[in-house]
């Protein structure tokens, strides 16, 4: 799993994490709480600034949009009232994206848009944990595609994504709330319901996911089990490493 998730790879940042999954690879860095510009200072909370840089070129409209989604979500997670009038800056750099045959074509950009979202969320979550900023909860997120024939696909390939009838990204908090839901394509409530259930299984503690879902549905965090479990295990490992000195 160290292959897919690395905690604090960056020495200078207060906290950082890098994730690799499904052809994407992202490095997230968190800095904060630091001094905030007078302009966007919030009296009773800390401002959160998400910066997303695409693999190639500079960010545009699409990146801004993703940034706003991530910012809204993290605001729920970070204990913003703990550090008022400060800035918490999250920088997300897409290192690698799956090669898209006709990437030039905008029409499918939106698809890749969503498929990028989970790993962005995931890596920023991990980066936050490594920063040890006070949080209200943790969360995990996953991407589920619905093919034209109506069956659900996890970890859809680029091709599958392109052909999918609809795409769904859902994020669940450790308290079991649905934190975020982004869906596009054509579908109806029942399909969405199904997606919801699948996603919940993937994300939440495995004890409420049924045994059939043990195949590697998670963000490649190697050992089976839900994303939340793997998240936990990552942290445990970190702790173990840091407090090695205690034993012996």
């Amino acid at each position, binding site marked *: 799993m160290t292959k897919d998730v690395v905690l604090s790879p960056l020495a200078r940042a207060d906290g950082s994490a890098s994730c690799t999954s499904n052809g994407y690879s992202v490095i997230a860095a968190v800095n904060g709480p630091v001094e905030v510009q*007078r302009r966007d200072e919030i009296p009773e909370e800390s401002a959160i600034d998400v910066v997303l840089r695409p693999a190639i070129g*500079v*960010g*545009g*409209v699409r990146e801004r949009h993703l940034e706003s989604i991530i910012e809204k979500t993290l605001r729920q997670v970070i204990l913003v009232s703990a550090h008022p009038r400060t800035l918490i800056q999250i920088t997300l750099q897409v290192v690698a994206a799956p090669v898209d045959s006709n990437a030039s074509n*905008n029409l499918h950009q939106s698809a890749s848009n969503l498929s990028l979202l989970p790993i962005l969320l995931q890596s920023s979550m991990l980066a936050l944990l490594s920063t040890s900023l006070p949080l209200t909860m943790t969360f995990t997120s996953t991407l589920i595609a619905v093919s034209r024939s109506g069956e659900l696909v996890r970890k859809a390939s680029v091709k599958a994504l392109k052909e999918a009838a609809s795409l769904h990204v859902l994020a669940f908090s450790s308290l079991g709330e649905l934190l975020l839901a982004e869906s596009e394509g054509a579908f109806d409530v029942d399909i969405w319901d199904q997606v919801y259930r699948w996603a919940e299984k993937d994300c939440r503690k495995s004890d409420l996911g049924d045994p059939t879902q043990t195949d590697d549905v998670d963000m490649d965090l190697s050992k089976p089990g839900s994303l939340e479990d793997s998240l936990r295990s990552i942290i445990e490992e970190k702790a173990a490493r840091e407090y090695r000195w205690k034993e012996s």
Partner: protein
Amino acid sequence: MADRRRINPPSGPTITPIFLASPSDPPTQPPHRTRPPHEIRKIFLKTGLTPSASGSAYLELEPSSSPKPTTCVDRSTSALKLTCTVHGPRPLPRSVPFSPHLLLTAHVKFAPFASKHRRGYVRDTSERDLSVHVETALRGLLISERWPKSGVDVVITILEAEDDGPAFTEGGSGGAGDGAGGLSGWGMMSVLSGCMTVASAAIADAGIDCSDLVSGGVAAVVRQPSFPHTQTGASKASPKEIVLDPCPSEHADILAVCVVGYLRSRDQITEIWTRGDMEGLPGEEGSEQSNFEVLLDQAVEAAVSSRLVLDAALKEATEYKLQKMAPALPSSGEKVKGSD
């Protein structure tokens, strides 16, 4: 450099469709002025259409020449459509040094689809120039020392511009494109007059103390359309006349135009913008007045008649407010604040 604020069309120049001028259609004939020379076009003016602003107004000139049977995709005569929002008075941004009075800034912007030639998203020279004109017209109006250390922004968006008639189309992309390029045509002048009127209404709507209202008026020297189609006019001199509120597309060649921002109740002028050759007007030799003065007076005439509309619109709005506010605050003077 690439525009990252919006999703852009395919890279590569796009051009406005060129229409086949089939002589059969009436619309392709240049429209003629149907109004008498001293009549201005109908103006629709209403305040308070933009609730999110401190004050706002919308102005529309109704196309004078009778709307044609719309068999044609691009209607050749367009009507001026302006919206103006006023923000403030509000505290000045930190960057601006302390000022004991109200600082006014005006931003005039054409919507990209406002004119025949597609406009860019950044303000070009002609737009900036218009802004300067509008500021000049308004500054004289405000009783600015009643609003210390504060600023007010007047934002005018031109949804639809006067299409600039011959002067414009001939002059190529009149200044829109090339940096400090050529001037844009006569249409600009009537746009300015509209801007002044609408801005004045919006400012009054925002409840900012003014010494008067300013209304715009345009008058032009035109060569009477003796031969409709000759552009090479100079040689064959047909009689010149002065018309109020010229609609550029209606006049084969306009020789000079004068815009004024006029304060009626003070009989003063806060803004003049005049261009062109105003020589050889009928009855120039005899009279004491120079051609310019004759033209100026006519422009003022136009301003006076647009002032009527301005007053009416404000009256209506004010009555509306009064009856709305009736419960809100008892109409006794002392309780009003924020002034002086």
